[in-house]
C-alpha cells in the first residue's frame, strides 16, 4: 500500500481491516475489495445479458413472430453480445486478476490502487449509459455488436450514448491493463523471475498488452462512426469517398485480439486448476508460456477471417486462411499439455476440476469447429449462419464462462474462508453442462442446413432444433441460480477452509490464511530470494 499510503491516509499502513459502511466500496483502493466489486458486477451483468438471450430464444422457440418486433429483436442480439463481452467476461477476468495476481506474485496490492478504484467505478456508469439506450426513443443499438457501418449509422440518436459507453468501457479496460502490467513488473516477490510466475499471471500479462494495443483501435473506429453519424464525415460512406469495408478491417483488427483477450486468462485459470487436482505439476510450463505468446502474436494477423465474403483479393484470402489455420498449432499445444498434466496424475473431481474438464472438452469442440471455419471455401458456406453462432458460443460459454466459474469455485474458499457446498457445486456443473449442450449443439445443425444468424423468424425446416435449443437455453439460464445460491451460501458461512484449501494446490496464494486477510504480503515472501 506504499503508494496509496504516501498521502494523508497514514493509518492504512497498519493491519487495519476495511473501512466501515458503504463508502468502503466507493473509496476502496484495496485489490481484494475491487476484485470483489468486479466479480459482483460481472454476475449482475451475466443475468442481464442472460435475460436478453432468453428473450431471443423465446422468440425463436417457434417459427412465426410471437413476442417481439424484429427491430427490438435485433437490439437484443446486439446488447446481449455487448453486455456478455464487455460486462461479464472482461470484468470477471479483471476481478480475478485483482484478487489473485498480487497474491500469486507475493505483492501487497496492485501497483496503482487509485487508478484501480477508478477503473472499476467507470464500469457501472458505462453500462447504465449503454442499457439506458433501450429506453430511449428509437430503442437501443440494433445493428449487431460489431456496429457495422452503414447499418449502425441508420440507428436512432441514442447511438451516441452507445459510443460513449464503449469509450468508457475501453478507458476502464486500458487503465486496468496498465495496472496489471505495472503490478506484474514491479510488485513481484524479490527474486521471483518472470518464468517463475504462475501461468494465470503470464496469460494476464499478455492479455493486458493485447488490450492496450487494440482498445484504442476500437475507440478510433467507433469515434469515426460517431463523426460519420453526427458530424457529416464520410469515413465509411462510399458516396462521400469512404469505404464501409474499412470499418470492418479496423473493427476486426481490434475484434480478433479481443477474442483472445476473452480466452487467454481462461487458459491461465485452467493451467492452475488441472495441476492442483491431478496432484502433478503442469507438463510444459515454458511451452505454455510460448504458446500463449504465439497465440497473441497470431491474433493480430488473422482478423480478416471474419470477412471472407466481403470481396478480398485472392492473395488476401489465402494469407488469412493459412494464418488462421496456424493458430490451431499453439492452441493444440495447450490442450495436449493439459492432458499430459492429467496423465498419470492422481485425480479427484471437485467442482473446480469438473468445470476445468468441461472447459477442456467443450473448448476443444469449439476449437475444432474453428478449424473448420478457417477453411475459406467452407467458411463461405458457414459464414453468418448458426454454425458460427454455435462455434463462438462453444468457445465463450464452456470456454470463458466455465473458466470463470471454475476459478470462482477454486478460490472462493480462499476469499471467504468457507468451503462452498460441494454437492450443489457438482449439481450446478452437471445441470449446466447438459443444458448447455442441448442449447448450443443443435445450432451446428441448423447452421449447416442454412439458417442465417441474427434472424427473428425462420423457415419450418429449422423448427425442431430451434425448439430444442430454446429448452436448453431456459434450462441453462435458470441453472445459474444454483451458482448464485452456492456462492451466497459460501459467503455467509460453511465448513471452515484450511489455508491450503486443496490438497495438491501450489502457489503463494495458498500460503496466506483463509479467508485471505485484508492486506497480504505486506512483508514479501522469502522463498524466491
Amino acid at each position, binding site marked *: 500500500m506504499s503508494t496509496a499510503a504516501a498521502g494523508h491516509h497514514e493509518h492504512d499502513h497498519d493491519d487495519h481491516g476495511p473501512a466501515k459502511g458503504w463508502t468502503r466500496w466507493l473509496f476502496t483502493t484495496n485489490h481484494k475489495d475491487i476484485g470483489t466489486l468486479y466479480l459482483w458486477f460481472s454476475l449482475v451483468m451475466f443475468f442481464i445479458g442472460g435475460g436478453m438471450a432468453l428473450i431471443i430464444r423465446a422468440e425463436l422457440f417457434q417459427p412465426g413472430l410471437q413476442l417481439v418486433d424484429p427491430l427490438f429483436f435485433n437490439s437484443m442480439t446486439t446488447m446481449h453480445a455487448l453486455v456478455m463481452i464487455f460486462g461479464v467476461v472482461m470484468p470477471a477476468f479483471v476481478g480475478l486478476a485483482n484478487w489473485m495476481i498480487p497474491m500469486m506474485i507475493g505483492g501487497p496490492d496492485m501497483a496503482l490502487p487509485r487508478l484501480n478504484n477508478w477503473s472499476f467505478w467507470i464500469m457501472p456508469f458505462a453500462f447504465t449509459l449503454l442499457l439506458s439506450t433501450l429506453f430511449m426513443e428509437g430503442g437501443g443499438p440494433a445493428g449487431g455488436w460489431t456496429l457495422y457501418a452503414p447499418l449502425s449509422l441508420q440507428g436512432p440518436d441514442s447511438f451516441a450514448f452507445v459510443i460513449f459507453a464503449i469509450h468508457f468501457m475501453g478507458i476502464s479496460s486500458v487503465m486496468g491493463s496498465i495496472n496489471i502490467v505495472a503490478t506484474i513488473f514491479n510488485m513481484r516477490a524479490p527474486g521471483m523471475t518472470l518464468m517463475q510466475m504462475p501461468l494465470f499471471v503470464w496469460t494476464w500479462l499478455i492479455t493486458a498488452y493485447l488490450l492496450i494495443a487494440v482498445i484504442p483501435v476500437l475507440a478510433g473506429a467507433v469515434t469515426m462512426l460517431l463523426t460519420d453519424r453526427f458530424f457529416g464525415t464520410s469515413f465509411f460512406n462510399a458516396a462521400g469517398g469512404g469505404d464501409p469495408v474499412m470499418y470492418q478491417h479496423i473493427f476486426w483488427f481490434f475484434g480478433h485480439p479481443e477474442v483472445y483477450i476473452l480466452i487467454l486468462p481462461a487458459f491461465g485459470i485452467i493451467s492452475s486448476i488441472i495441476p492442483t487436482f491431478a496432484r502433478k505439476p503442469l507438463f510444459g510450463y515454458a511451452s505454455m508460456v510460448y504458446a500463449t505468446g504465439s497465440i497473441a502474436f497470431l491474433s493480430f494477423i488473422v482478423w480478416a477471417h471474419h470477412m471472407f465474403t466481403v470481396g478480398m483479393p485472392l492473395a488476401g484470402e489465402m494469407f488469412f486462411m493459412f494464418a488462421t489455420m496456424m493458430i490451431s498449432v499453439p492452441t493444440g499445444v495447450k490442450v495436449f499439455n493439459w492432458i499430459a498434466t*492429467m496423465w498419470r496424475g492422481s485425480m479427484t473431481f471437485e467442482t473446480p476440476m469438473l468445470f476445468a474438464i468441461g472447459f477442456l472438452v467443450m473448448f476443444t469442440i469449439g476449437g475444432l469447429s474453428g478449424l473448420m471455419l478457417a477453411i475459406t471455401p467452407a467458411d463461405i458456406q458457414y459464414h453468418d449462419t448458426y454454425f458460427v453462432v454455435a462455434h463462438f458460443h462453444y468457445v465463450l460459454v464452456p470456454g470463458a464462462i466455465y473458466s470463470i466459474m471454475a476459478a470462482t469455485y477454486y478460490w472462493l474458499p480462499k476469499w471467504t474462508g468457507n468451503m462452498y457446498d460441494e454437492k450443489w457445486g457438482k449439481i450446478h456443473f452437471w445441470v449446466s453442462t447438459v443444458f448447455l449442450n442441448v442449447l448450443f449443439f443443435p445450432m451446428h445443425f441448423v447452421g*449447416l442446413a442454412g439458417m442465417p444468424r441474427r434472424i427473428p423468424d425462420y423457415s419450418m425446416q429449422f423448427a425442431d432444433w430451434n425448439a430444442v435449443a430454446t429448452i436448453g437455453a431456459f434450462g441453462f439460464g435458470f441453472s445459474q441460480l444454483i451458482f448464485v445460491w452456492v456462492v451466497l451460501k459460501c459467503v455467509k458461512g460453511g465448513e471452515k477452509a484450511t489455508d491450503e484449501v486443496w490438497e495438491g494446490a501450489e502457489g503463494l496464494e495458498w500460503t496466506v490464511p483463509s479467508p485471505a486477510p485484508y492486506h497480504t504480503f505486506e512483508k514479501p515472501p522469502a522463498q524466491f530470494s
Partner: protein
Amino acid sequence: MSLILRVFVAAMLLVSIAACTGNNMPVGVTPISKETYGLHMMIFWVCCAIGAAVFAVMFYSMFMHRKSKGAKPADFHESTLVEIIWTAVPLVILIAVAIPAAKTLIAMEDTSDAEVTIKVTGYQWKWQYEYLDSGISFFSTLDAEHNVARQVGSGVDVSKFDNYLKEVDNPLVLPVGKKIRFLHTSADVIHSWWVPDFAVKKDAIPGFINENWAFIEEEGTYRGKCTELCGRDHGFMPVVVEAVSAEKYDAWVAENSPAKITIADSGAAAGAAVTATADADDDREWQMDELMATGEKVYNQACASCHQVDGKGLAGAFPAIAGSAIATGDHDAHINIVYAGKPGSAMAAFAAQLSNTEIASVLTYQRNAFGNNVGDTIQPSAIKALR
C-alpha cells in the same frame, strides 16, 4: 472404459444421423458447391478424428489415474521430444488440408469467361436483379402471403406454408449449363446474397461491386437468404432461383426483355408484368380511388416495414406518416423525399424502384390514409416530369 467407448460411438452415430437427415451442408448443384461440400466433410472428419484421439486419451486418464483408484501422481514434466511431436503432427495435418482448400478457393475466385452476367442489388429489404446481357430488370420481394403471416401476432399458422419465408414474388431465372457471373452491390446497407446450393455468398456493399460465379448443373428451384444483418427485416429477404434449361431460359429472356418490373407487381409470374403499358397511362388524369387502391398495395409492399401498416412508424427509428408535416404538406417536399430519398438515413430513393404510377399512388395514399385527410391527389404525370 467400455462405457465411455459406447457413449462415444453412440454420440458419433447421432451426429452422423443428424448429418444425413437434412442437418448438413447441402451438396449443391455446382462444381464449386460440390468441392466445398467435399472440403467441409473432409475437415469435419479430420476434426472428429482429432477430437476422438484427444478425448480418448483424456477419458482414459480420467478413469485410470484417479486418486480413488489409488493412483499415485507421477512427477514427469517437460519433454522436448513430445512437444516437438505434438507441434509437428498438427502442422502436417494442416498443410494436407490447406492444399485442397487453396485449390478450391482459386477456382471460386475465377470469374473469367462468364456467359451470363447478373447484377444483384440489395435493398432494405428486397433484391433487384438486372440481366446485363438482355436488359431485363426486376425486384424480388418476400411473397405477400408470407409477409402477412410473419407480422407479430398475425395469428396465421405459418406451418401451412411449404416454404415459409423462402418464397418470393419474382424469382431469379437462370440457365443451367452456363457460367453465370454475379455482380453484387447495394443501394443502402450491407447485405449478403447467399444460395447454399451454389456455394455462392457475397456481400453486397454500397458503393462497391463484388463478383462471383456459378455453373448450375441441374434444373430446379434453389432457395437462399440474405445473410448479413441489414436492419429490421433482415430475416425477410429471401432469394429464390429458378434454374431452367438453356432453351427455356432463352425463351424467357425473349419474352421479357427489355422489361422493367417494379416491386409492387407482386404475385405476377416472373417477367409477366411489364410497366410499359402503365407508362402510357402516366399522362392521363387518375381518379382518387384508383390511386388509393394501388397506393395501399404499394405502401404495404414497399413502405410498411418501416413506416408500419398503420402509418404510425416506430418512434425514433422511422417517422410516422400519420400526421407527418411532409406527408400532409406541399407536394414538392413529399414527392422529393420519396423520389430522391434522404441521404444518410434509411429512407431510400424510390425513383428507380417504383414506376411513376406507383410513386404517385403511394404518395396519394399517404396523404389520404391514416387520418391524413389532405384530400388532394398526386398525378403520375407529375412524377414523369421529374425523370
